[in-house]
């Protein structure tokens, strides 16, 4: 039976290979362009890899334009957003998961509703708020703006996970003399390391890839995150296409490795109730 199945499956492979080809096409193309020598950037040949590949674009990206500065800015903003988001979200999520208190359902609906509001819609008042607090063109301003989306999302995700941890664990700890806060700190938090990691990863990917908000808040080029820097390079499309490609590849490869490595976690987090609600 299985051999027969295999023979009938050729068209499945055909479709899948076509799908894979489409999926990886832009990535292969920017890798190819990044390896092209400067005089061949605008070559109209369709062949994927240039025969005389070399690394001049990469050398220029790493030494001449402020590539590492962008990376540094991105890392600072991303890490702080994730840490602040998860730390504030964890306790709130625990309270929502374990306790009954007045207005609880309205708090939950409110948190759900905030996920629907796109940050673009609140960006204008946020911008003026940050301006009044002198936080335009600073890391802090971007971190505050990113927390608008990451914080409710992390609360929602973590609450979904805390709900799956049996309550009896804490009850038995409390029988043994643990305080309520202590049982959260010593029992629930260690047990939910995977979900904390997932929440962190979500916050990190969101902040790491963000462009629209950063463009409004960051104005001086010393503070540019890498998406802003890349857009600048691409803005001078005609002259620096090769540099853009090299910088893109340098950012993309590590991010993709992390994503593919953690995709199992991320996906289980999606189905664990974070998104499902």
């Amino acid at each position: 039976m299985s051999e027969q199945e295999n023979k009938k499956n050729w068209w499945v492979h055909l479709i899948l290979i076509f799908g894979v080809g489409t999926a990886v096409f832009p990535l292969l193309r920017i890798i190819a362009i990044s390896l092209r020598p400067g005089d061949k950037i605008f070559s109209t040949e369709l062949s994927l890899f240039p025969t005389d590949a070399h690394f001049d674009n990469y050398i220029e990206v790493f030494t001449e334009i402020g590539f590492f500065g962008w990376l540094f800015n991105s890392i600072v903003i991303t890490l702080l957003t994730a840490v602040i988001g998860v730390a504030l979200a964890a306790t709130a999520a625990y309270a929502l998961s374990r306790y009954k208190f007045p207005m609880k359902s309205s708090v939950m609906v409110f948190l759900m509703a905030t996920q629907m509001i796109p940050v673009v819609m609140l960006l204008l008042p946020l911008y003026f708020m940050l301006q009044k607090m002198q936080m335009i063109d600073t890391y802090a301003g971007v971190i505050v703006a990113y927390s608008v989306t990451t914080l409710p999302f992390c609360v929602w995700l973590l609450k979904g996970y805390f709900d799956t941890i049996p309550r009896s664990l804490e009850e038995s700890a409390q029988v043994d003399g643990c305080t309520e806060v202590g049982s959260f700190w010593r029992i629930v938090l260690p047990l939910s390391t995977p979900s904390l990691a997932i929440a962190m990863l979500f916050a990190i990917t969101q902040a790491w890839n963000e462009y629209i908000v950063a463009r409004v808040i960051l104005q001086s080029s010393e503070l540019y995150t890498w998406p802003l820097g890349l857009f600048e390079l691409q803005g001078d499309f005609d002259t620096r296409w090769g540099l853009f490609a090299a910088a893109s590849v340098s950012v993309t490869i590590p991010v993709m490795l992390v994503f593919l490595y953690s995709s199992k976690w991320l996906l289980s987090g999606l189905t664990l109730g974070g998104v499902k609600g």
Partner: protein
Amino acid sequence: MDAYEALSQIFYLIIATGGAIFALEAVLYWSFYKYDKKYFILTSAAMGVLIAGLVVVFGWASEQTPVILYGGLIGIIAGLFNKLYWKGRYRIPFMMLAPGFLAVSLLVIYPFFFEMKLAFSNLNLYTINNWLNGGDLKFVGFSNFINVFTTSPLQTATFWQLLGRTFVWTGINLFFHVGIGLMLAILLNRKIMAKGFYRMLLIIPWAMPQVVAILAWRGEFHPQFGFINQFLMAIGLQGISWWSDPIPVFISCIIVNIWLGVPFMMIVFLGGLQSIPQSYYEAASIDGASKWLQFKEITIPMLKPAVVPSITLGTIWTFNNINVIYLMTGGNGGSEHADILVSALYKSAFTYSRYSFSAAFALVIFAVLIIMTLIWMKISKGTESAV
């Protein structure tokens, strides 16, 4: 501002946040223990005044006296609530919830009300300096809202055109996301070789940073040097000016967004398919059900619970997707023929600096979102009872 200065400012931010959280927890702890003391309400009011005073000292409030009064009032109300209803219960949940909830409120509720205030005033490029230097906002009634419907948020497109375009955008994208995603998931769920390999490569559009992917695609749509036009010309067709012609611009945005969104749906569907027990299909085929009938009567209904939330989420994401449109059309000063509601909002606020107009525009978009959600909730409830 340079990086060093910005870093030291972060340090202040962390200290300030930590201090605020600590103070908040201390106040809550105190008020949940001492709620039955004689002067509780008075002290609570005093504490409200104190906190409001701190806010004024840090310069975060524009009008000073009302803020302090509000602080006292909130203190009294919270104290009364505590004394009459809560009676010291809920201490731990409130203390745990407070920092996160307050942060969300400050970041969402406050800007929302501020946006309402802006929507009814006349803030624009000419009045902004006056306002930033302490001037007042002039109340202008509903004129901004009327302008949203009568004038154009961008250079040419009207609100109704943008709305129509947004629906077309959301509908086409969702159709292809779900269609292609479901097809790939079904194929991947068969017994085939190299399944994990295919799956890993197929989620690359999701794994790639969006900005890189979109900008790379934009390069491929370059009218002269991009792959797409070169390919079209190689097979003897005419190149299309993807960067400037109205319809091609929009089509290129849709193509890129379909490419970006398929992997998510595929993974969701795959997870749903794998959770359907094989025995259902075996039983059905013993009873002589055709493949199509099995798909219709087993796969679709069993997939529904896992998939409906993801589709809802996908709709909201697509409706609100500004990245693809903004970056594909070249940002500020690029083509405006593909703009949907949210990207038009962004441009009218930050490119054209029509602040009050954009605030009203944002509220209108928000209303559209709410109406859509209500309709959707009604539909999904209707289908639930039908199953």
